[in-house]
């Protein structure tokens, strides 16, 4: 028998980023027992890295902004594949969620009249991103953390959930291991909220950390929940490309929001060459107009550098492929040029983009106030994820909820910058609220011990596998290489079929990974366990990418360049696990909009 300790909660939250913390705070407002589990130390989740800002139609900088415009922007950005109800709730509730953070100690940058300042970002019609320089995520996670630690929530840091537990149809808890000693912990819970973030570690070039192995996606899938639109993986247009060891680290869109421009090796501002139909009316005609926009001129339209991320990423790839790239295979991102426009430009850049300034100075020996950066696309975010009910965030498994990056619906085919931090707040709160309600209305269900035993055996297997078994790091890096090559920015039937084959082979290899050492803080063992999740989400991404025979939003098929498949209509792809343990995919037509939603989109679309 495997030995383990058991803990009892009303609501268990898996993940302590913005979504998990916000959910935990909400769930603990009554007198429920709330547990919060995370893989790293508290305050280190991905949310801490977010730079640019959090989107909310506060209308502090431009009073023309409103939830209606934010809603329309989000729908347009998502190519109308978003769940409209989620987009509506998000646009309506994010201002309140942002304001509330100041009640808990956050301090955003200020406008002249002392309210929360907002900046421009790609795809947002008006300056909408509340921010703190370029360390917004830090401010946000710290405010939630510092408030959360006084709410009576039990926090389990450096613990990893490896499986959800079910009793009948309902979720009954989760099992995990603690990093320090490798011991098992069983968390019995009436409701479980997944807030585990993304999947970036499935790729070679990524802005994401070791934590992003798609755990929540995979846990939910294996527990019978559905995954939707998994083909939509956002490649952020600007990651660092040099030196090799920092390749993929994010360069915030805030650089472009502050006036940064993209140029190729011929010094040409290539973004002006290709402006999509959908945005033709709202894009600047000249560099001057674009500059005025970034400086807050309300009559000016946005520069093409601030078009949606999928488009900017594709333009960069095209420049590089056609031989107009920078020395290390990217293009140039230049903020230093604003010297021509502003007298105190150097100081201005350092103040507005302090962490970018340091990042380049310290990691690449580049002074961004003097010279351009080299940038190229990096895997950044997954729009697809666990399918949830828009209002309650519950999955199709009773008692199982999801919020934040691991959940899906809000962003459709492409996420607008800043819409993730607000997503975490709005739907983190909702998930916490409805999970608490579920826990109040339902009794606990007993956990089945046999299930625990089975999981424990599987998890300990890498220690017993013969030593000739593969090194888990090796398998991880092979997977990343294949995903990058075959399921990256440009995809085709051939590459995707090949990817699925490769993933199957790696799954077999992963069965036999061998790890050395003991269970205590053993990175090799953890990597071996993460592989299960990584392989599951990789397969889901490839399968969904194969299913969508079109190029829309973040998903591009070389063999199907059109935005829509003739006669197929607008659909979401939906993945679930069948009884015989295989991954199956189907399509569902995107639901009709309400009259009000349609009207808003017609007015502003």
């Amino acid at each position, binding site marked *: 028998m495997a030995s383990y300790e058991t803990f009892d909660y009303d609501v268990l939250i898996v993940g302590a980023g913005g979504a998990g913390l916000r959910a935990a705070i909400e769930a603990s407002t009554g007198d429920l027992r709330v547990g919060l589990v995370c893989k790293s130390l508290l305050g280190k989740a991905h949310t801490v890295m977010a730079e640019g800002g959090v989107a909310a139609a506060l209308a502090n900088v431009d009073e023309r902004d409103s939830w209606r415009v934010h809603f329309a922007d989000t729908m347009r950005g998502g190519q109308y594949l978003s769940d409209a109800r989620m987009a509506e709730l998000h646009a309506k509730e994010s201002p309140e969620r942002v304001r509330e953070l100041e009640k808990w100690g956050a301090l955003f940058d200020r406008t002249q009249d002392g309210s929360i300042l907002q900046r421009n970002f790609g795809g947002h019609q008006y300056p909408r991103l509340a921010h703190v320089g370029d360390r917004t995520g830090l401010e946000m996670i710290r405010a939630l953390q510092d408030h959360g630690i006084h709410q009576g929530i039990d926090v389990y840091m450096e613990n990893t959930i490896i499986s959800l537990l079910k009793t009948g149809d309902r979720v009954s808890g989760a099992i995990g291991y603690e990093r320090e000693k490798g011991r098992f912990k069983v968390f019995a819970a009436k409701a479980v909220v997944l807030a585990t973030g993304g999947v970036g570690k499935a790729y070679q070039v990524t802005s994401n950390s070791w934590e992003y192995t798609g755990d929540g996606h995979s846990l939910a899938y294996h527990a019978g929940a559905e995954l939707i639109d998994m083909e939509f993986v956002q490649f952020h247009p600007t990651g660092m490309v040099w030196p090799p060891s920092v390749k993929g680290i994010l360069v915030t869109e805030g650089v472009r929001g502050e006036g940064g421009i993209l140029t190729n090796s011929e010094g040409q501002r290539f973004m002006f060459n290709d402006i999509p139909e959908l945005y033709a009316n709202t894009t600047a005609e000249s560099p001057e107009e674009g500059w005025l926009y970034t400086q807050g001129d309300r009559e000016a339209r946005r520069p093409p550098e601030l078009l949606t991320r999928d488009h900017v990423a594709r333009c960069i790839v095209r420049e590089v492929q056609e031989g107009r790239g920078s020395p290390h295979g990217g293009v140039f991102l230049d903020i230093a040029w604003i010297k021509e426009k502003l007298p105190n430009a150097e100081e201005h850049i350092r103040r507005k983009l302090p962490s970018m300034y340091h990042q380049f100075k310290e990691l690449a020996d580049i002074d961004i106030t003097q010279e351009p950066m080299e940038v190229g696309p990096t895997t950044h975010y997954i729009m697809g994820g666990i399918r949830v009910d828009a209002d309650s965030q519950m999955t199709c498994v009773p008692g199982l909820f999801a919020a934040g990056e691991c959940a899906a619906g809000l962003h459709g085919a492409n996420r607008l910058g800043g819409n993730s931090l607000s997503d975490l707040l709005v739907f983190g709160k909702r998930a916490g609220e409805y999970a608490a309600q579920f826990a109040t209305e339902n009794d606990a269900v007993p956990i089945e011990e046999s299930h625990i035993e089975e999981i424990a055996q599987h998890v300990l297997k890498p220690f017993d596998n013969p030593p000739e078994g593969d090194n888990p790091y090796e398998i991880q890096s092979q997977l990343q290489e294949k995903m990058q090559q075959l399921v990256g920015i440009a995809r085709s039937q051939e590459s995707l079929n090949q990817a699925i084959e490769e993933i199957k082979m790696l799954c077999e290899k992963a069965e036999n990974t061998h790890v050395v050492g003991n269970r205590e803080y053993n990175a*090799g063992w953890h990597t071996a366990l993460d592989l299960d999740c990584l392989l599951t989400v990789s397969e889901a991404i490839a399968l969904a990418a194969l299913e969508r025979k079109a190029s829309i939003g973040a998903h591009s098929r070389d063999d199907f360049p059109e935005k829509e498949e003739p006669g197929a209509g607008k659909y979401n792809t939906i993945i679930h696990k069948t009884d015989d343990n295989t991954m199956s995919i189907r399509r569902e037509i995107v639901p009709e909009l309400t009259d009000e939603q349609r009207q808003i989109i017609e007015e502003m679309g």
Partner: protein
Amino acid sequence: MDKATFKIWRGDADTAEFVDYETEVSEGMVVLDAVHRIQAEQANDLAVRWNCKAGKCGSCSAEVNGNPKLLCMTRLSDLPLDEPVTVEPMRAFPLIKDLVTDVSWNYKVKEKMKPFTPRPPDAEDGTWRMEQVDIDHIQEFKKCIECFLCQDVCHVLREHDLHDAFIGPRYLVYAASLEMHPIDTENRLEELKNEDGIGYCNITKCCTKVCPEHITITDNAIIPLKERVVDEFYDPLRRLFKVFTG
């Protein structure tokens, strides 16, 4: 490709020692890259914390050639590679394994401090008005990524082990960010003087020197707090005033 030798602290609280690893190094690498390469190729079970790899999360704190550093922001090109590079865990905290230490004490310290307590909102929509100039200095404190390098280097904790009597520079910065917050109404001076032990700090400024966020911990946070404590408890006029007002 060039090679370099890394002496990495391996072991747990009971036994640990430096182990030499030779690995390939290339342009632009940071110490964390080298540690990862060693982990992937030679020591699969090597324990090291990291998340962002960009100096933003404060997870990868350790001591490189004896200096408290973020492993992800320490470039190999800034180190002499003709001799071995030593990489060891922070010494002010108990070792868990290899480069990972038990920093839970820090989290407990924070939990005990009085939380942020705002005055009633200024505007109907529940918001406050604050001038940018009035928050610039707190925004400096709020850059803290909780790497605990300042805690690691402070002699009060590192050498004198006064973890029970002194909250350390990180939490003095935290206290400053709350005390100087324009809308906070709480008074933390009593705690600062007593439980938090601000008097133990003798302004050596070692903490400021190691802070990767370049927070001027001593000058901007600790000294002003000390002054407030002095004003509150040792200022004869104020004491007299207190006697009369009760």
